[in-house]
């Protein structure tokens, strides 16, 4: 029912000779399934009636998994909100549209379907992609299909007071804590050569370039600390992250990033390379270059708002980043009303980064509640 309003989600992926492309999918489904302990499993393009989203339920929780080329966090959030509103209406509650709940009776607007990258790629130069090699977390790999989740539930007012005290935003504060945790982890390994610790953080471009697209519209920034320049105190890290964000996150720099991304897609030479070669190089690129340039991923979806009629039925939101290619930990943050959740997902056994991260929060006087899907060993 909801799906018809979101044609960009109702698609299947097809292999062409030169590109994979998305086409509308009218097969039955996707069906709601009972939730599982290891979410974000790899998606086979032909399974699940060729749908690229999965919907799960567990106790009082609804989960939506979206293949990364369909949409980013903002787009997926519209879908999840609308779906939840439709579900509550079926239960007999009065839920109005608005605050991200879309009217499922209206036809989708063309602006929601656009490729906003192309519209805004106006900068004359791109920015180089390379960031240099970053510290990489090593750990014992779990068997394939395992996704370890450690979730920290934090009251928003407490963390806001602490980050205000430092004079930074919540995102900057959590960024700095994660960098701090990674630096501690690298130090504890006593490496021959220390490497810079870098985070890969997506930025929602909708707040800089007005667009209503429900497809992907993000860019990456890489806040980084280089321990070879000396030991950073936590306050110095905070200061650095704070200045980095001020410096890089503005329409001009982001536009140059868009141009870099779009130029790959537009390049006539790359367009004619057969797909199997592309698959191969893209995979190599991800495992060796992209994952090598950052030590961990961090995303903050921000504060979610809902129509106030839905308030009593929704307790909290969680966001998970999918399975990484290498042995790293990814971190996703979202807040709703007074609950902020920090979800670490990884496919390794070790929990050092998570431990350093949450211990730092506790040291700063922020109460944290931990949940996990890990089976702890005796």
């Amino acid at each position, binding site marked *: 029912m909801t799906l018809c309003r979101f044609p960009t989600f109702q698609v299947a992926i097809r292999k062409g000779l030169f590109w994979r492309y998305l086409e509308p999918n009218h097969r039955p489904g996707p069906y709601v399934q009972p939730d599982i302990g*290891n979410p974000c*499993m790899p998606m086979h393009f032909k399974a699940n009636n060729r749908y690229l989203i999965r919907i799960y339920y567990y106790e009082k929780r609804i989960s939506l998994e979206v293949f990364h080329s369909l949409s980013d966090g903002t787009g997926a959030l519209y879908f999840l909100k609308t779906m939840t509103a439709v579900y509550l209406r079926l239960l007999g509650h009065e839920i109005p549209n608005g605050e991200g709940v879309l009217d499922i009776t209206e036809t989708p607007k063309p602006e929601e379907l656009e490729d906003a990258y192309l519209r805004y790629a106006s900068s004359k130069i791109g920015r180089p992609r390379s960031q240099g090699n970053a510290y990489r977390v090593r750990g014992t790999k779990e068997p394939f299909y395992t996704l370890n989740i450690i979730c920290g539930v934090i009251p928003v007012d407490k963390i806001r007071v602490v980050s205000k005290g430092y004079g930074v935003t919540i995102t900057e504060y959590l960024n700095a804590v994660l960098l701090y945790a990674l630096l501690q982890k690298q130090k504890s390994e006593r490496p021959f050569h220390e490497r810079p610790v870098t985070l890969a953080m997506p930025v929602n471009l909708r707040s800089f370039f007005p667009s209503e697209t429900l497809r992907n519209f993000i860019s990456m920034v890489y806040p980084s600390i280089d321990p070879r320049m000396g030991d950073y105190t936590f306050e110095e890290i905070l200061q650095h992250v704070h200045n980095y964000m001020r410096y890089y996150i503005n329409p001009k720099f982001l536009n140059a990033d868009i141009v870099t991304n779009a130029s790959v897609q537009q390049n006539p030479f790359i367009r004619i390379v057969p797909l199997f070669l592309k698959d191969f190089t893209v995979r190599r690129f991800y495992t060796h270059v992209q994952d090598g340039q950052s030590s961990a991923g961090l995303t903050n979806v921000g504060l979610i708002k809902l129509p106030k009629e839905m308030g009593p039925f929704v307790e909290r939101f969680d966001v998970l980043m999918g399975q990484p290619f290498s042995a790293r930990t990814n971190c996703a943050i979202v807040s709703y009303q007074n609950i902020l959740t920090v979800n670490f997902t990884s496919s390794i056994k070790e929990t050092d980064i998570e431990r350093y991260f*949450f211990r730092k929060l506790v040291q700063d006087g922020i109460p944290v509640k931990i949940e996990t899907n890990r089976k702890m060993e005796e």
Partner: protein
Amino acid sequence: MSYCVNCGVELDATAAACPLCNTKVYNPNQPVATEVPTPYPTVKGAVEPVKAKEFTILMTIILLTTAVVCVLLNVFTIQIGRWSLYVVGICAMLWVFFIPLFFPEKTSIYTNLALNGLSIALFLALVSWLHPNNNWYEHIALPIVILGTLLLEIIFIFVFMLKSSMIVKAAVSMAAIAVICVATEMVIDLHLRGYFYLRWSAIVLTCCVVIDIILMTIYLQEGLRAEIRRRMHF
């Protein structure tokens, strides 16, 4: 509610240990809850298997048609000898080589290696049956194929199964090269002359032994390893 005595974080009522540091929860006032649902499901999911394997079907058809066409040609048009049997043998061998690509989840690398060795041995047996000629198959081909397969299995065990260091892997590979060279010269010598005398393989053997001795010394001397790492800037 319980807190971890080590990290100071609040834990879920169902947690028996701290997820961050694995410290056990011991709270006399509140035992670990077993009735309430855990925050995450305990059921494990598995990815739906993809049914039609286009590549498997395509390769099987190509190899099968090649074999059949050649047999037909051999029987009806080009009736010189039994040449089509070679083609059939090669097609069967290729199909066995492709097994890991056909069923990537089910097969292990060790059974694949054994199957590949077996298919080569069978193909050579076919050739020797078509050309019965002074027992070269039993004397040379079969021993080398069996030995080669065994050595490859051993190398793969060292590379993938045991978590051995690069040095050990290199040493084992060197040793395997030496063994296969010596064995090759030995079976050829025995077959042609009836006696056995080390010639070219002696050079290979000496090189491999020297390299292996160096590698093992480096491996066993902790200080030396650190020194080399420092000098070579690893």
